[in-house]
């Protein structure tokens, strides 16, 4: 899970998050090999993309005989979910991490994250 597989999973997600639309494995491979020291094999990339699809991180759409892959959720959505974990303590289970400062109540954290998202989208709109 860790090691090369983990690093490749991350590179694939990075490429697909930056891509304008769903990519085929061939296109994904070309992007990945653009700035790689050692060229990756088609099969390796396909296997890992398939694993990511099974984990629910990628969505697969048929395109001719092959598939196109796209992230199911934007990178920002994951960041917000991680921030919610980082800021709040869940009642459902014990603490999963140790914070440097204190936890804030969940509804406060949600307001905070929403307000911030609104503000950044306003900035971009203006």
């Amino acid at each position, binding site marked *: 899970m*860790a090691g090369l597989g*983990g690093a490749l*999973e*991350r590179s694939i*997600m990075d490429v697909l998050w930056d891509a304008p639309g769903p990519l085929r494995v061939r296109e994904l491979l070309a992007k990945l090999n653009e700035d790689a020291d050692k060229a990756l094999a088609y099969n390796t990339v396909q296997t890992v993309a398939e694993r990511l699809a099974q*984990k629910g*991180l990628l969505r697969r759409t048929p395109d001719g005989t092959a598939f196109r892959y796209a992230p199911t959720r934007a*990178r920002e959505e*994951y*960041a*917000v*979910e*991680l*921030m919610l*974990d*980082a*800021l709040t303590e*869940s009642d*459902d*289970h*014990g*603490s*999963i*991490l*140790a*914070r*440097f*400062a*204190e936890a*804030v*109540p969940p509804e*406060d954290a949600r*307001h*905070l*994250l929403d*307000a*911030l998202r609104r503000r950044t989208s306003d900035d971009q709109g203006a």
Partner: protein
Amino acid sequence: MIYLVISLVSTAVLLGCLAGPALDRLRRPAAHPGIAIACWFAALAGTFIADIGIVAVALLSPPAPGHGLLEWLRNCLPHHGDEAIIMAAAASLALLTACCSRLARSLPRLRRAVRHRRRHWEMLRLVAKEHGRHDDVLVLDHPIPVAYSLPARERAIVVSTGTQETLTPEEFGAVLVHERTHLRQRHHTMLLMLDLAYALLPWLPTVRRAKKTLPLLLEMAADDAAARACGRRTLVDALCRLAATPGVAGALGAAGPSTGALTERVLRLESAEVVKPRRVVRAAASAFVAVAVATPLLVAAATIVQLSDIC
């Protein structure tokens, strides 16, 4: 025999109901958080050993079916009246049901926590970037400053870009020492065990108070390590800046969350000078730890051994 049972029950009561309040009343546990943490965990461990011992004794004592099973070969059941056997069986069944329902309630909670943590870490690996200079740090791209750690084999400390912008390099260093101390001293495991203890027996005073006091003591232990390495001033500055989190984003304003525990940490760092624990304190704490764990273990073992001899 009866004396052993009485002493087992009184050990359970002493540890479960009185040890917690007594530890809470100790003069300035914050002066030596490490020692206080050891005492609390010894009290918790002793409480659970004693309680498990009582359950075992109740199930194995004649004429309960547990004893019957143990002593089946010696055929000791006929000595007891039918009525007594039925009553004991009913009592054993009720006791077992109660134990199972506690476990059924709390073990899934533990499983959820572990699963949630794994999921959090997997997301982190995809979204966060590796820190250029520290090889145990991940950077999450988000303007709200946060810093935390979770037990993982690599890159277990996470900071947001907001934290990097908010803190000076020295303060950032103090935060890292704080989090590394959490990881080195396995505070995450302790927090998980504490949560499990609370889920199992929330009504015992010792467990309830431990749940309230221990997390703060763990923070103080990590604070002490960071203060030693980077200076107390730096650590206090870092704490104050990161505590101002909601203010930074401007969403909550004055109605920020209560920061009672944080205030306590800052006040402690600002006032008390760090003194090495005196030998008496150390010795007393070690004695307490040994007695709190060994007593219920020995008494429970002795009672059970006695049980196999009587019929």
